[in-house]
């Protein structure tokens, strides 16, 4: 069924009787060519592109709960390609280009809104680093502008310019960055994948791998054994748990990132702002809630909730940056479990087990990567070679020393 304004009107006039389920509810078949573990944004996108772009057949997405229930439904909805390093920026720029055409591609309005992202700088050293980054972005085909304090003030007159502990000196503006309605991304890819014949199987948890002679044969699940020629794990937050069933230890820790939303407000913050002197970034949803976040809690956890010190730290930063937020109320907070990798960058790679592939380690950057991660995983599954923008995302890079450390924090996941 094709969605359109006309269709909405027609259905409204006929009692909405014609709407069909967005994806089929199917039982697993005995065997597939491809099994993708994880019905999140990445897994669904990979299935979609594998079927549509790479001609894959007999594809299943296995989801232990309900699709979109992981980080694609728990993030702060930001998309951007404002990375510094060569290993990253081409990938995220590829992703942003896919975002820009997503709605037409999927015939689903995920509300991709390129409202602009402004990274504030507060010191000369930060401005120099922003300049290096902005130049790297432009050299990689992305967009960037360096604003001075007056330029920032014109865009965001309500920031704290006059009574700030750390004055705003300028900002790096990435106009093509923005926000997307996060749940709709999962639903849109699910619907698209389903239309291309992908089986989306909910409430189906993988409990083990069947591996024979170093080759993958299939997966054990709560709904029985499912044979597969190729299996990909795309379960950010649970990567270590799943891959440990294949005997692998990963360069990943699981951490919680809290996210927050305020009560709904009339238009307040036009774009996305990140504070450079504290842990705070913020945008406003189409419904009016200010969606914001900050640092991860910092300890290993699989519990999807955080604690007060980080809540207070984030909000101290927020009110320091935007004093008018003092009387705005925090409505809800929640937590998502991040695959925090050892250099802050992800993996899309084969494993030492033939036919077993791994996509993970996305830290808090997985959402913006969704289209490209799906595409590149599909590329790897279909061709057994990495996509040209994802060649650096190797599992063995810590052994080789070819690290992709955007923040320069070293092997400490909670600092990335």
């Amino acid at each position, binding site marked *: 069924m094709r969605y359109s304004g006309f269709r909405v009107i027609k259905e409204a006039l006929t009692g909405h009787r014609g709407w069909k389920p967005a994806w089929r509810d199917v039982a697993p078949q005995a065997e597939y060519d491809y099994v993708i573990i994880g019905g999140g944004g990445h897994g669904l996108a990979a299935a979609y592109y594998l079927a549509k772009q790479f001609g894959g057949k007999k594809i299943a997405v296995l989801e232990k709960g309900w699709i979109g229930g992981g980080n694609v439904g728990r993030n702060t909805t930001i998309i951007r390609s404002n990375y510094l390093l060569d290993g990253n920026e081409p990938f995220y720029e590829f992703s942003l280009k896919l975002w820009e055409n997503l709605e037409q591609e999927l015939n689903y*309005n995920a509300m991709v809104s390129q409202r602009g992202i402004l990274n504030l700088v507060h010191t000369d050293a930060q401005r120099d680093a922003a300049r290096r980054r902005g*130049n790297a972005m432009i050299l990689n085909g992305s967009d960037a502008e360096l604003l001075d304090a007056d330029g920032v003030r014109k865009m965001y007159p309500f920031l704290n310019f006059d009574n700030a502990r750390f004055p705003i000196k300028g900002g790096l503006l990435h106009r093509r960055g923005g926000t997307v309605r996060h749940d709709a991304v999962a639903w849109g890819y699910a619907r698209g994948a389903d239309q291309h014949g992908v089986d989306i199987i909910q409430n189906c948890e993988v409990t083990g791998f069947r591996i024979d002679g170093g080759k993958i044969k299939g997966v054990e699940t709560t709904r029985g054994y499912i044979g597969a020629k190729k299996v990909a794990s795309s379960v950010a937050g649970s990567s270590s748990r799943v891959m440990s069933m294949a005997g692998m230890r990963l360069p990943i820790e699981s951490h919680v990132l809290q996210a927050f939303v305020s009560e709904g407000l009339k238009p307040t913050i036009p774009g996305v702002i990140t504070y450079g002197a504290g842990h705070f970034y913020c945008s406003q949803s189409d419904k009016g809630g200010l969606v914001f976040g900050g640092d991860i809690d910092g300890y290993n956890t699989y519990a999807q909730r955080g604690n007060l010190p980080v809540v207070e730290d984030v909000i101290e930063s927020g*009110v320091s940056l935007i004093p008018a937020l003092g009387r705005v109320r925090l409505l809800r907070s929640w937590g998502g479990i991040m695959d925090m990798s050892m250099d802050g960058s992800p993996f899309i790679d084969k494993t030492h087990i033939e036919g077993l592939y791994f996509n993970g380690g996305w830290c808090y950057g997985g959402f913006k990567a969704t289209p490209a991660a799906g595409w590149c995983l599909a590329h790897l599954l279909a061709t057994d070679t990495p996509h040209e923008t994802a060649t650096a995302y190797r599992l063995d890079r810590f052994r080789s020393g070819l690290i992709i450390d955007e923040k320069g924090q070293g092997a400490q996941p909670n600092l990335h």
Partner: protein
Amino acid sequence: MTINRLKGGLVDHGAPLNFTFDGKTYQGLAGDTLASALLANGRRLMGRSFKYHRPRGVMTAGSEEPNALVELREGGRQEPNTRATTVELFDGLTANSQNRIGSLERDLMGVNDLFANFLSAGFYYKTFMWPRAFWEKIYEPIIRNAAGLGSVSFEDDPDLYDKGFLHCDLLVIGAGPAGLAAALTAGRAGARVILAEEDFLLGGRLLAETSGLEDQSGLGWVTQAQAELSAMDNVRIMPRTTVAGAYDHGIYGAVERVSDHLAVPEAGKPRQCFWRIYSKRALVCAGALERPIAFENNDRPGVMLAGATRAYANRWAVTPAQSVVVFANSDDGHKTAADLMAKGIEVPAIVDIRADAPALPGTEVLAGAQIIDTKGRLGVTSVTVRLANGQTRSIACGAVANSGGWNPNLGLTCHQRGRPTWNDHIHAFVPGADLPVGQLVAGAAAGQFSTHAALTTGAEQAVAALADLGITASVGDLPKAEDAPRAMTPFWHVKGAKRAWVDFQNDVTVKDVKLSHQEGFRAVEHLKRYTTLGMATDQGKTSNVTGLAVMAELTGKSIPETGTTIYRPPYVPVAMGTLAGRSVGKEFHPTRLTPSHKWAEEQGAVFVEVGNWLRAQWFPKAGETTWRDSVDREVTATRQSVGVCDVTTLGKIDVQGPDAAEFLNKLYINGFAKLAVGKVRYGVMLREDGIAYDDGTAARLAEDHFVVTTTTANAVLVYRNMEFARQCLFPGLDVQIISTTEAWAQYAVAGPNSRKLLQKIVDPEFDISNEAFPFMGCREITVCGGLRARLFRISFSGELAYEIAVPTRYGDALIRRLMAEGEEFNVTPYGTEALGVMRIEKGHAVGNELNGTTTAANLGMARMVSKKKDCIGNTLSERDGLNREGDYRLVGLKPKEAQKMIPAGAHMMSQTGSVDAASDQGYVTSACYSPSLESYIALGFLKDGANRMGETLRMVNPLEGTELLAEVVSAHFVDPEGGRLRD
């Protein structure tokens, strides 16, 4: 005119208060909420719904209110989305309705309601996609302006907020019958108790009911209990305090509304205080929340929850109208009818879905009947009832008391993602087994709905909680209370309705739930996210269970099989100002001042934030028009004669013990074991991954005593890493460390005349001649007549230079003395800018270069690495990927045109190739104008830089549209041989 004010209640009829709503002045009474005061004045219409802009009035009497949201106060104190039900009335209160265009009565956005059929759940995912560019430019701005609720004033909030910390054995949350009984029980046992109550009065439902206790009045017992608790030193009663979040290990976050009942807080007092409560046990006595029945047009102003209606009548002495129809599925609704009638309100009928509904004198009970519609544009004027026999009847009324049963108030029980369980007896979710550790639940929150059960479970749970802590308590005398069984027939929605609201604030109707089911969004979370059910500011307190029940009907499963929803902190929305507390504005982070700060201020220095430090950036002099004038002068004066700079901010760590040298060997790439006493050595530290992260010096004051310096930025990190090495990696090394950063005021005295200047203040018994105190020497000395001091002959500027340290309190006097004594040398104070220029001129790396991705080799320090010993980072620094041919190397850069600035952050390209990422050769890390070379200069990392001296490269900066040519040179621009250091 307070047409709907009744007699009695807990309001002070002798204390009128004036307030305005939408510009019109009204009168309420002390003890009113804004909602009760508006009702008293006959105002049912208080707001507009989110999506359809339907007229809305108050529905509840508590913080679960979905409809009556207002903008309270004005200017910097404006609070959007404030629930009128929780606003304690004060004289002069100002409130305005929100989410409307034009007046509240004639909201132009009300037109949305006409198109409601097109605006069904999730319609926006299916349209607004063509043409592509229209989304951001046309559709989305329209949606955004229509959406949202209240507005932000954009003025700075003038109020203060506090944070605080409390400790207790038992935190009792809610001071209704269960909470009071619990607090009394625990208080009498001597436990440390905190009793937190959201309301400004203790008592909970006892204040709202006429039929709670049997041998005394509810209020009487509450008063008596409060008096007893107030007299106990071990009990802290906290009214106006909402426990908002349950966190790990018994920590609760609570908001005390210290001054919200006042027009303006008292001077110096906070508006609110956010308490972090450390409880050994917590007892949730948060009561229950009533749920509405969904029926056609059940959202009109005047349709209220039945329990709220009688609370307004009994406690606040108001009624929404003089004639109220009750819609009920249990005897609870009959209580409302009886109480209203006792207050003289007409109850034309009780519409009871039960065929066997009991009769109630004074009104007509329509058994087996249902309300199928309401009428009235801005408030109910009549209801249409379908009788048991299928006929319909219209009944005129001004309000409907809607009673669909009660849900235990589960918020805090779910904050750690614990799942509630279904109770078939009360047809509601009750707390599950996986409560937050240390949390117990009593009373209606646990599904114990009678007053008797609330009192007894409150006391019993307190006893149980304290028993865990080894405190013996016992259930004492409790008042005799009603214990009527709560028989009820679950009834969620009237079938056949066109639009029956489930989630009032977000405008989610029964049909939306059906559509969600039809389109496959059947998991509870899909339902919530697709329809926005429960996502409004009330978190679905009055709607989630009903939504689930409708979905359960559609799927043919039971409600618990269909799923549960949990609540997330905070329990009610919390002002962000409260969570920020005092750490805002200039006090966001502490400020660290250097010892020379006071003096530097007097000199008119310009300061810069370096971490939390404020450092003098430069010292402008009369006649200087730009900062460059000042910085160039400071550099030149230092290089020509002598300059002084406060370098106190560098980290200083005292390292002592027999194994101190061996310990430093583990931390630095280079060796320290053989460093002579009285000598200083420069060192570089690696992270374990082989990346350089800090540099500094270690001065050996004695065989077993070093003073290590770190960069300003890494002082804390280096200390932490040292403790890790000392305690976890090498616990056998006998070494003791402690930070002394703050203890010493330290000044760099640099330039050819630095020795001469120092000789004027160093006490004469200390010989600091070049022979007696050569380069890289260190000594403990005295200055200015016996003041203990430390002198290091080290140089960051590349000149003959020293760093001198005195006790911090003398730092101010010392810099004044240096300036006075140095007059003959034209001594010049210099700031961080000149410091930066001189270090770039010398090619010293700082944070710009030690950016967390560079190795010692990248920095040109490969030869420093001792391979004869182990040090942190040594092994992994040898990985191939960090030692490739052609890797980055720190180089100097000189523009072809001396007066053209090379911007830090520019990328390097070869002169001939293309300008793109693939052709990138490196990047500029630091740049400045060098007055010494009369040219701009820069440092940067260049691929294979060591082998490219003399090459000319393009410095491209497409970000700002600039580009220039520069020559690759040695990073040591000034005195590369270092002769000046040693003179």
